[in-house]
């Protein structure tokens, strides 16, 4: 653990008359869920480390409305969206990065029709661009040569056709990337999307996260890499259900990069 995190808020920036390079949209899971908060911090460390001038909305951030929309509550979604757009536009935000593919998708695809136009990036895309610009060093370190499989988040992959950014980062970590049978366009959902995260599943013969975790375990990985706080929770639960938590870790790519650099 090196120095403390530097995470300024937009309000502070505004008071100083400054505009950050990018807004880090933390998301509800990233703000409140204990596991997801670790991802948030890892990413913030990487931003600090790369010298990115960023800020968060802090207490002014609120749910993008994704779970409401996908549960069918268009009213609540649009209320949330309009309020968020007011806040974002009030701060004249141009560019947003987020560690949650659901926030990413909603901000990027569903806000423009409601008047909110921003350049939105998923954190794996942003990290990739930092790496390409030479601002961020991504090196294997302790992950070098480790067997790792990557679970495509639906809202990053199929929903937005981004399959390569996370894989390029993993490649840079010099891991041995093994793909699951169902990957990329045919990747199997973790079971959390469409507001399923917040309810019990319907009657069936298996939980989706267990089905997905079993497939991941078949590749005999030491780490299952994820790019979404919800996938992370679902697969972590799956690994526990299969009693594999001693041999298999579930980690976000941001955590892996931060970890490799000993941040």
């Amino acid at each position, binding site marked *: 653990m090196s120095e403390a*995190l530097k995470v300024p808020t937009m309000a502070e920036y505004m008071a100083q008359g400054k505009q950050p390079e990018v807004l880090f949209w933390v998301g*509800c899971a*990233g*703000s*409140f*869920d204990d596991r997801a*908060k670790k991802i948030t*911090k890892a990413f*913030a460390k990487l931003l600090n480390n790369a010298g990115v001038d960023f800020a968060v909305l*802090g*207490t002014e*951030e*609120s*749910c993008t*409305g994704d*779970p*409401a*929309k*996908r*549960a*069918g*509550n*268009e*009213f*609540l979604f*649009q*209320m*949330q969206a*309009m309020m968020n757009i007011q806040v974002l536009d009030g701060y004249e935000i141009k560019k947003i990065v987020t560690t949650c593919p659901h926030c990413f*998708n909603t901000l*990027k*695809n*569903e806000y423009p029709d*409601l008047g909110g136009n921003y350049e939105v990036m998923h954190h794996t895309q942003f990290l990739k661009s930092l790496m390409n610009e030479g601002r961020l060093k991504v090196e294997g370190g302790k992950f070098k040569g480790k067997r790792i499989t990557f679970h495509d988040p*639906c809202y990053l992959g*199929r*929903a937005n*056709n981004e399959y390569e950014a996370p894989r390029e980062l993993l490649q840079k970590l010099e891991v041995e990337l093994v793909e699951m049978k169902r990957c990329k*366009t*045919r990747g*199997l*959902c973790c*079971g*959390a*999307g*469409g*507001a399923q995260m*917040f*309810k*019990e*599943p*319907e*009657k*069936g*013969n*298996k*939980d*989706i996260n267990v*089905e*997905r975790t079993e497939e991941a375990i078949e590749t005999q990985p030491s780490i299952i890499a994820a790019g979404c706080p919800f996938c992370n929770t679902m697969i972590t639960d799956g690994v526990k259900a299969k009693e594999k938590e001693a041999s298999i870790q579930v980690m976000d790519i941001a955590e892996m990069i931060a970890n490799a650099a000993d941040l």
Partner: protein
Amino acid sequence: MQYIPNILFLVILIFGIGYFTKNIRKIIRNIKLGQAVDASDNKGQRWNNVIRIALGQSKMVVRPIPGLLHLIVYLGFIIINIEVLEIIIDGIFGTHRIFSSLGSFYGFLIASFEILAVLVFVSVIVFWIRRNIIRLKRFWNPEMKGWPKNDGNFILYFEMVLMTLFLIMNATDVHFQEMNNGNIVSKYIAGWMSVTPESTLYIIERVAWWLHIVGILIFLNYLYFSKHLHIILAFPNVYFGSVTPKGKFTNLESVTNEVKLMMDPSADPYAAPPEGAETPAKFGASDVMDLTTTQLLNAYTCTECGRCTSECPANQTGKKLSPRKIMMDTRDRLEEVGKNVDKNVEFQPDGKQLLDDYISREELWACTTCNACVEACPVSIDPLSIIMSMRQYLVMEQSAAPNELNITMTNIENNAAPWPFNQMDRANWINES
């Protein structure tokens, strides 16, 4: 007297095409029972999709074996139909193989038709084996009982019969065999029949010729009752399909207007709606008329292949949801509504609707909105959008979400997060170690 066959032919042809046209019109009318959508945008992208996905079958190659077989049947089907043109001209004017004057080019054409006919025949047999002997799982889901299962097989039998008739017709055509131009496959069949007297061959040839063209007309009219409608509708369906990222769900405009009104402090909530503004009948969909014309076209286009269902995480883990069934139910209900309109001119409430009578809530709530079904569909159908429209109805018109989701939504409303945390604690993570 000598014109009787010509007249008979014309009558059959006109009846066959006439009945087909009537049913196509009915389909168009039924689709227009839905809510109009604007698809005048992105013309270039839309045509590109038609060429790539519909004509080029780009999605079919994801599964190489059925993809290749399907390509053969599809190409065979289109190309062999050039032959139908000759049959129609011969039938109307009483000529015989009118194009044969094209010489060696004619031979080339017929030779390719004959080879394709054999390939189609073989592919169709493999399809039949996959359905009935190997019993691929996606052909045996619960929604594939009864008519859908038979329908799938009927089409295969149809193709087998038509291809056989085509080859027999060529083999028994003494004149054509004597020309020895293009009879690349049929000459072997003719060889087996060499002992048959010429007069018998003539009769067989005529019978095969008539059965072949009548068979094609029956096939054409069978389409309307079958999942096989996709051979026509795939093209418009792909054209009208989505041209935005799959993650982008449409924002309901009717809701936007109300939300704007609610958020605008200067708006007078009691003001009469502006001239020409329609008050939306309802939010979301409980029946087929609430769906969009694109969603209804989707339903008619679905070929019940089950690629969507076999990729669906909910279905794979034993939930009741099957995206294919969503499409089949929508079509069945739309047909029912269409019959109602046939009878009563305008739709008369029949005490039924798509929700509950066809699609259960349990199915709707099992969806993770993962888009696997949309990705898998070879003809750009979007089962997810129908699920979403129906969820919208359940939540916004009936407040009938599962209780845990109601709690989630209340949390979002009150604390700006799906969990009961205070918005003021949102930045606490920064200082936590």
